[in-house]
């Protein structure tokens, strides 16, 4: 399976590893960004950003259900922003195990990263990306990186 934004995602190669995002942390001011950037957006230092593993968990900042989908997606689908404990607040989709219904997600809830195909459509079913699901739910096997 291909990976959407491969430089942004750590895909495990053995069972002991867990997937995560690849962000960058500034040596000068400790700002963490996602996705990676070569220049720190906070202190504008060039060359101070080092890759860091982030985003295995997060807290839901905001969420909505889109009732119309752009090409390659299926409506309805959740769209969310997640606060990562390392600092960034990122846009994300929600894993398929989470039913797309009002009341299922609540801002502030603990979330957990999963790797899944981008969407169940001919265009995107073979494209692996990161998504988040409520952390309380049982661990599911992430597909597509065997």
């Amino acid at each position: 399976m291909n990976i959407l934004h491969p430089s942004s995602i750590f895909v495990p190669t053995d069972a002991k590893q867990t997937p995560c995002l690849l962000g960058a942390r500034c040596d000068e001011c400790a700002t963490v960004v996602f996705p990676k950037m070569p220049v720190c957006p906070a202190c504008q230092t060039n060359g101070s950003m080092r890759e860091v593993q982030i985003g295995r968990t997060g807290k839901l900042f905001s969420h909505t259900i889109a009732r119309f989908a752009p090409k390659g997606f299926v409506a309805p689908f959740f769209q969310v922003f997640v606060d990562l404990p390392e600092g960034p607040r990122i846009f994300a989709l929600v894993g398929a195990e989470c039913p797309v219904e009002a009341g299922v997600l609540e801002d502030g809830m603990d979330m957990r990263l999963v790797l899944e195909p981008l969407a169940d459509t001919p265009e995107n079913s073979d494209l692996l990306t990161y998504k988040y699901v409520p952390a309380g739910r049982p661990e599911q096997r992430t597909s597509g990186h065997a």
Partner: protein
Amino acid sequence: MREVAIIGVGAHATGQFTEKALKDLAYTAIWNTLDDAGAEPSDINVAYVGNSLGGLLTGQEGVRGQVVLQHSGITGIPVINVENACASAATALRGAWLEVASGAADVALAVGVEKMFVGDSARTISALSAVSEVDLSEMGMQFTTSYAIHPKINLKGKMAEYGWTSADFAKPAVKNSFNGSLNPLAQHRRPLSIEQVVQSRIVVDPLTLFMCASISDGAAAAIVCPVEMAPRFTSKLPVRIASCVLRSGMYRLPDDGFTDSATVSAQAAYEEAGIGPDDLNAIELHDAMAPAELMLYERLGLCAPGEGPRLIDEGITTLSGRIPVNPSGGLCSRGHPVGATGLLQIAELVWQMRGEAGARQIEKRPKVTMAQNQGGLLLGQDSAVYGVTILKT
């Protein structure tokens, strides 16, 4: 810098014009503007042509400006093609203003044109997504989503923070649909009720169909020259450009305490013009989603945070109020052909300031007005582009 006046404006109606190409839409706007200014193609020294989606939607990726201008009889002069998402036209106007203000040119033309009806709305929606950074659009991010939940706009969050309701969200759409019903150039001319707006289909919770600007074809233009040169062309009231500000968004970190870029760009425009929000007599602003108008009230300094719905409840921003906002009908009613919108706003304000706005004419002719246009979305920002123009007579 020289003081610059707008001596002519013109537009093509907004809506669906299946039989018309980009250059046909632009032709109507350009020649209405030339006629309005009393100018000939040979008077134009330089032209800036704003368009956002023409490459993806019409296949005309390059030299769109030269193509549409040649169709209107304007050739040989410097032509600058401008792509700046939904703020392409405000950016084109800034280019024309700068040419004249700097003394590089005496007479400059700014055009904004967009062709969005191409017989496949899915293609149009994908093209619209592509005016944001592709890392986001590839993940299914849409403009509607960003207005609903993006940290720096987060209209859904405002419902919790301010107690705004779905009915509050509908208020700008209702007000603007009334204004648009009086505008012969408007795409949607049916006055809407709160109930109709609230009960229309949900697009992205909490935004409903009638809260969102729709796909549109359209074009608008303006001609500018030094203020003292204006009488050579026209006896109409010259409208001076008091400030013409362009800003990009900034990378934002959660809770960084920075002032948002809509506020920053408006403040820069006020400062350059030497005025404040209380001096404005009319505003055309970027209500791509109706409830964004409520947020822009506070960001443009018209009210304190959370007080937006009150400005409509008390009639302050209605057509007969102290500061009418979106007298044209705004993006949701007048229409939002994205690369034309900034100049449609300018044309409306010029008509209002001259007293030529017909049934929607603001009774006390506005003397100081603002056009606020924004567009695009980058990772880590609210919008990518902000254009704010203040006009004075």
